[in-house]
């Protein structure tokens, strides 16, 4: 489903942010991508969603190749992906309900179906009391929950979670990690990028380690 073939990404500065990265992810797989600051984790996720273009090599996601994809197809590709950002990226002008409904609406869902699904996920992440609230009124923990809900509402093929527990205490972190596993059980492949991963807790999970733009 997701294939990276000798992917290299170079910004203007000389040392490349990513160098010669190759790996495969199958449908419904759960992968943790770990590495220190500047390892290139976020850059890798950006390449997958085509926010950045590959310098050399190729990324193939669901039969769409980074070499041959047309500009018009990029939105279609992104609609198959769920994304959790470390800084949430909720839209401040929209209330929590509309924020979570965003991916569903972009997918062109009918309003009553959208409503049902959003209520369902808000219940799941424990935000059902805050439908009309705006992101500015929520605590970091609650924003993180909303961001998760938005990313999983449309049952994406692949969920890219970049530091989804950065702003959470241990209890909430564990909860979010549990959700990631739950959605994975429902068939979504999950790529979880994080700095502080403690392999002893989850040693049954496939882990990819990076440092300075290379797999190690």
């Amino acid at each position, binding site marked *: 489903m997701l294939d990276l073939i000798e992917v290299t990404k170079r910004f203007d500065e000389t040392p490349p942010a990513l160098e010669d990265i190759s790996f495969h992810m199958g449908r419904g797989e759960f992968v943790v991508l770990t590495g220190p600051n500047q390892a290139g984790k976020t850059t890798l996720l950006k390449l997958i969603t085509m*926010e950045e273009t590959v310098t050399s090599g190729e990324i193939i996601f669901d039969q769409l190749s980074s070499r041959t994809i047309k500009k018009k197809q990029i*939105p279609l590709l992104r609609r198959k992906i769920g*994304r959790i950002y470390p800084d949430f*990226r909720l*839209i401040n*002008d929209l209330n929590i309900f509309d924020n979570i409904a*965003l991916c569903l609406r972009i*997918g*062109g869902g009918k309003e009553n179906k959208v409503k049902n699904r959003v209520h369902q996920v808000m219940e799941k992440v424990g935000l059902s009391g805050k439908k009309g609230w705006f992101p500015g009124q929520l605590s970091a923990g609650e924003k993180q929950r909303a961001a998760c809900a938005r990313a999983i509402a449309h049952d994406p093929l692949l969920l890219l979670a970049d530091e989804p527990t950065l702003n959470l205490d241990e209890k909430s972190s564990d909860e979010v990690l549990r959700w990631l596993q739950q959605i994975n059980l429902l068939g979504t492949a999950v790529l979880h990028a994080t700095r502080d991963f403690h392999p002893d807790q989850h040693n049954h999970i496939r882990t990819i380690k990076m440092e300075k733009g290379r797999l190690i």
Partner: protein
Amino acid sequence: MRDSYLIKQAIYGIFQRWKANLTLVGCLASSFLVLAIFLLITLNLQNITEKLKGEAQIEVYLLDGITPEQIVLLRSTIQGYPEVEKVIFKSKEEAATQMEDYLGKEILKGLDSNPLPASFQVSLREEQRKFPIISRVSSEIQNLDGVEEVEFGREWLSKLDNAWSVFLTVDWIFGILVTLSVVLIVSNFIRVTVLSQTESIRVMKLLGASWKDIHLPLLLQGMILSGLGGLLGLLLTRGGYALFPIKSASLTFLSFHMMLGLVLGGMILGGGSSLWSIKKLV
């Protein structure tokens, strides 16, 4: 996204930031107001000039020895011109009476004969009252039998025409500048509105929003806000016109087509600015 949702969202967005949008519409309205007043002044000055020109008549002085039959013939010839509306005859006696009224009884007292000629006052149809036409008709009449001289206030008319063409030059320059200002101001204000949504736009694109999802709401918002600005500007102009201290039948307001053009122009300008701002943003 579904069109119904996009349209709903565009309108909802305007109400959501109603405070900012109110100032926005106010600023746009004040720009459009200046434009509308400019058009109004131009239009009315043009009307007044046309009216003044319309008062221009051709005086046809007849030869002294002319017979009544010749006069009737001449009159019907002149009346037969397609440009001519009305021909009034002034006999030698009427001319003398008018002269006496003007300069005093004594002026003609001692003369053996009345030195003043009989004349026709010829006025043209309204749509023909232009300097070149008056000039041409005059010289045609000049060549008719029994006509001694033709006068039509050549100097005054050409002065008016000159003044009008000077004014038109100034008016065009000023008009272009006012229009340019309006375009500059509207596009910049709309740009600021679009820029205030930079973050939303970025996030929407990351989540897979299509070209239409991004552009349609902002296009609509630009059109609505700028159109409202134009409409409000027009309403204010209309209000000011209603309160205007000098009333006259010759004053007119902008025609329906001009008003429509102003509002539609505003909407196109607003929408265009929106699209252009998004283009520069992405």
